[in-house]
């Protein structure tokens, strides 16, 4: 009892991890932590940028597009998403997801390198320390939360009790706020630490010459180091090798051609066969209850506007058609480029009597679900490559790829390329 009181007063440390001699790795120290920290800083800055851009790519200010309507001030930067270059969203999302996966080992290594700090005793000696530790809870919680929700989401493992979109967006802002503060507070220490040892010198130092870093005020360097089993360059190569492994086994899902097969463990790098419709499916018709009954000869496309029109698939095929190679890029990071043939959205808008500068609200046969509809901006409708696609790679669309007709818009997120279109409602969104 007296001992517990001594622990609480901070006169004595509780046993185990609260004692500095518990942590024995001779590699822990400010230099190694700073190297990992710097890599993460660069990587996470790119993740933040691509993540925030991805939100803008949904054009959330248009009706029905916003999955986080309560965003408030956090949508301050939104802008009209361009259709040029056509690979913009493909690149953005590929980088966001693949880089996130690649950073997993670095994040783990960084957290490993600072774990003794979690058990520093007493937990806080001043209000400043208390406040900083609270921000570290947001930092570590935010980092792990963002990585975990992202990684589970791309594998369609929806075990979290919330919608992915608001959680990942607001979680990002909490994490980034804590990260910015952490960088401001730690940057001087990082610079000192990085200057304390030459990077090249470290790469030339083998196991035999590996010594602990000199004692540091933060207590990262062990007071009772064990004999090293790995050099510092070995540790860097180990973490880098982990990153390379994850990268190499997933980057293929953003590529076309033979390299796609290298995505052995990525969830959307699969092959379906050699046919014109054998590319990645993101939502099957069967899972949404869409079958031959609604998509057969009785299907009609409704064009809503000043001059409402109803068109059969034969009517659409008789209209002037255009062919473009355009990518489909999913928010989950995979993408593929295919050759689409169909009718320009701008031509259909004119057919419905819509004036120039109107957007379109697209409705799918799919009932319910967040993406059973999407709004496309005036800029997206006006792009001559935006189309209602009827065919792909010279063949009719398969049912899983949106037969009888689907939207293809250059540079738009995959889910805005609505499948099984039943209505194009041309309206002005301004």
């Amino acid at each position, binding site marked *: 009892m007296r001992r517990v009181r001594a622990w609480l007063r901070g006169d004595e440390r509780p046993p185990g991890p609260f004692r500095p001699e518990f942590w024995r790795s001779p590699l822990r120290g400010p230099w190694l932590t700073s190297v990992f920290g710097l890599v993460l800083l660069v990587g996470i800055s790119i993740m933040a940028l691509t993540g925030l851009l991805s939100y803008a790519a949904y054009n959330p200010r248009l009706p029905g597009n916003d999955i986080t309507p*309560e*965003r*408030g*001030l*956090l949508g301050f930067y939104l802008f009209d998403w361009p259709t040029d270059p056509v690979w913009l969203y493909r690149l953005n999302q590929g980088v966001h997801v693949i880089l996130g*996966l690649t950073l*997993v080992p670095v994040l783990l290594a960084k*957290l*490993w390198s600072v*774990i003794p700090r979690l058990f520093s005793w007493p937990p806080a000696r*001043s*209000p*400043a320390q208390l*406040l900083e530790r609270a*921000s570290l809870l*947001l930092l*570590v*919680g935010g980092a*792990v*939360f963002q990585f*975990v929700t992202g990684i589970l989401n791309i*594998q*369609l*493992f*929806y075990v*979290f*009790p*919330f919608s992915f979109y*608001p*959680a990942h967006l*607001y*979680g990002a*802002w*909490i994490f*980034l*706020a*804590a990260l*910015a*503060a952490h960088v*401001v*507070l730690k940057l001087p220490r990082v610079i000192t630490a990085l200057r304390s040892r030459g990077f090249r010198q470290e790469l030339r130092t*083998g196991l*035999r010459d590996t010594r602990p870093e000199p004692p540091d005020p933060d207590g990262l360097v062990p007071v009772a180091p064990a*004999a090293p089993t*790995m050099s510092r360059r070995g540790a860097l190569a*180990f973490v880098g090798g*982990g990153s390379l*492994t*994850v990268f190499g*086994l997933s980057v293929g899902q953003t590529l076309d051609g033979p390299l796609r097969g290298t995505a*052995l*463990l990525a*969830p959307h790098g*699969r092959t379906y066969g050699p046919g014109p419709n054998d590319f*990645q499916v*993101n*939502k*099957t018709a069967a*899972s949404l209850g869409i079958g031959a009954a609604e998509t057969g000869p009785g299907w009609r496309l409704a064009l809503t506007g000043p001059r409402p029109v109803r068109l059969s698939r034969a009517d659409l095929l008789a209209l002037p058609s255009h062919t473009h190679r355009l990518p489909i890029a999913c928010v989950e990071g995979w993408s593929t480029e295919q050759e689409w043939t169909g009718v320009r959205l701008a031509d259909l808008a004119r057919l419905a009597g819509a004036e120039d500068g109107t957007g379109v609200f697209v409705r799918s046969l799919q009932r319910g679900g967040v993406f059973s509809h999407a709004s496309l901006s005036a800029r997206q409708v006006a792009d001559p490559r935006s189309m209602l696609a009827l065919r792909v790679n010279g063949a009719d669309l398969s049912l*899983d790829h949106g037969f009888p007709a689907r939207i293809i818009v250059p540079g738009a997120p995959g889910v805005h390329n609505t499948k099984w279109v039943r209505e194009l409602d041309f309206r002005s969104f301004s």
Partner: protein
Amino acid sequence: MTRRERWARRWATTYGAGPGHLLTLAVCLAVAGYAATRVLAAGIWVGFLLWFVGAVILHDLVLLPLYSFADTAVQSRSRPPAPPPGTPPAGRWPPPVNFVRVPAALSGLLLLVWFPVILRASEHEYREATGLSTIPYLGRWLLVTVLFFAASGLLYALRLRAARRTSR
């Protein structure tokens, strides 16, 4: 001592750091706090909070201790064989621990990242979405794991031979 210095000293002793420290953290907490009100407005705060705090606990108090213990176990079982007489002392000999540790860690990393498809936890959603099964992933992961260990074993054998040759 000027009045300003006195004030600065009193601030430092009560707060424990300079005013810039407080300002930085106040901005951080204000932005994070605002984002938290958005979580509240989205009506998901209970699950969000649970997962947020759970993430820290899961990493710091479960995952990290687990792999640390596993690593200690590997280390204690793979003490290097006594070096042949005449070889330089520890450090020169390839410590076998890394030849187990590295492939095991890489394999564990892949499992950590991809367990929903490897262990088929997301089979239902995956089939609904892609029309395919997650069955192949377990085999692929095992194949990659076997390759890692095989490469590591080969490398160890080569190092061992080189070490024996130089000791002769």
